[in-house]
């Protein structure tokens, strides 16, 4: 209860604000419609009702979005291509695969960087540069390029997720693997521990807080990557495709529904990483 109450309060505040904003943002268009229909002097209560039930509102009211989510998930068969759950699953699988690739790649690169001077000096600047390449520009080319060699579906999307998510992991892990105090390293030096032992017994555990912070960012970005990739390739479905087609058809409610589902997925994923973090912390004897 003590955990739910604050969330509920903030949630209520947001929903109230949202409804108010919906009136405000949808009013101009509603006025146009009413004028056109020859309706002047609509009572305010009715007018509010109208702004909350437009077909293509600038800002859909919360209940519209949730009705759409409900209709597109629970009310439909899971395997239906109109089901948001179906599209959510497609995006989720690409996200998870890409995140797994990205985390692995990020850790491997970080390890190479802290252990090899040449890698550090040569790789780091280019890893950074790689992230300044606008992914949406490259994504279609990647999809086209991989399509040309026969790779379609999940893998191109996962690769784009990986491309985005490995970066926070590299940056965080390089910092984390370098975070042990000199005296902690000295201790292992006195045992003449080999590089492998220094890594597993000191650097890796010391880097855990950094790894989890990075993974939280990484998994959220990974989802963005999957969605971006889906925007480049309208066949195959996924939440990105729903966003796109919603946008073409001016279906704001559909856009928001897809957005919310994506955000919900990301929040769940971040929460899962968070619980993993707490579990590992507990196993590592962290102070409660």
């Amino acid at each position: 209860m003590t955990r739910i109450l604050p969330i509920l309060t903030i949630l209520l505040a947001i929903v109230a604000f949202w409804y108010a904003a919906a009136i405000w943002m949808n009013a101009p268009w509603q006025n146009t419609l009413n004028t056109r229909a020859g309706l002047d002097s609509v009572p305010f209560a009715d007018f509010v009702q109208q702004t909350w039930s437009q077909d293509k509102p600038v800002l859909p009211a919360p209940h519209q979005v949730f009705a759409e989510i409900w209709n597109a998930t629970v009310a439909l068969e899971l395997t239906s291509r109109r089901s948001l759950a179906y599209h959510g699953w497609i995006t989720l699988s690409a996200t998870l695969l890409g995140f797994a690739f990205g985390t692995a790649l990020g850790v491997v690169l970080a390890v190479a960087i802290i252990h090899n001077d040449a890698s550090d000096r040569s790789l780091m600047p280019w890893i950074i540069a790689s992230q300044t390449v606008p992914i949406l520009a490259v994504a279609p080319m990647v999809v086209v390029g991989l399509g040309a060699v026969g790779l379609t579906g999940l893998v191109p999307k996962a690769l784009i997720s990986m491309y985005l998510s490995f970066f926070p992991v590299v940056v965080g892990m390089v910092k984390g693997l370098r975070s042990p105090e000199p005296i902690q390293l000295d201790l292992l030096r006195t045992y003449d521990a080999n590089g492998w032992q220094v890594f597993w017994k000191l650097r890796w555990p010391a880097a855990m807080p950094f790894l989890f912070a990075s993974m939280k960012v990484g998994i959220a970005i990974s989802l963005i990557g999957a969605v971006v990739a889906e925007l480049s390739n309208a066949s195959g479905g996924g939440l990105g495709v729903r966003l796109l087609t919603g946008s073409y058809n001016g279906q704001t409610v559909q856009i928001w529904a897809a957005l919310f589902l994506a955000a919900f997925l990301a929040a769940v994923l971040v929460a899962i990483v968070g619980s993993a973090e707490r579990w590992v912390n507990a196993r590592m004897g962290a102070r409660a």
Partner: protein
Amino acid sequence: MTAVVQAERLGLTFPSGDGDIVALADVNLTIEKGEFVSFIGPSGCGKTTFLRTIADLETPSSGTLTINGQTPGAARKARAYGYVFQAAALYPWRNIEKNVALPLEIMNYPAAEQAERVRRTLELVNLTGFEKKYPWQLSGGMQQRASIARALSFDADLLLMDEPFGALDEIVRDHLNSELLKLWARTEKTICFVTHSIPEAVYLSTKIVVMSPRPGRVTDIIESNLPRERPLDIRETPEFLEIAARVRDGLRAGHSYDEEVA
């Protein structure tokens, strides 16, 4: 037989933005196998730095240093020594048992022997019952004892101990002092021991090295002729007090604010 530690004209300077710090200057010292050498000197005189240099954790700026006739690096690779740091340096994610087992894991002791050694050394420092606690659950002195246990858990011939008993009360200290002496007598280890306690230094050592600061130099080397078997009450004998007085004089001479002291 070669000396265990042999320093000749050893110097070490820390570069630093605003003026270099000369931590060791012109240190000459020979330590033979089986000796128990105490280092004593004002804070900041370079005791830790000297121990770290022996352990190949710092590189001398000048002079030569050999350990068992080898370079410090080769000695370190041969796992010639165990080191007790001035700070406990326990790993916060390992419980006490695991912290003590760390060097054993690294040196690939069989699991059963690891457990046995951990049990034995923890008992030696009187920490039985705290095996599963994490460092932050222990008092300062308990942490220090855990770090001593860690260095004793494997059998290095040379022990480098930097103020190991600083945070311990007199009784525990006496206890550990005599345990250490027993261990030393039994195993013929060579021990380098930093302490601030003159009685402790005299009680334990065959040789006491007095250092003075800025730059860190050896001002006196006092050979003790006390017998190898030392009951605790040897500390009241005139021989003992005489050596202690000599150490105190050497120490005072190296101090910058003698005059002020009443």
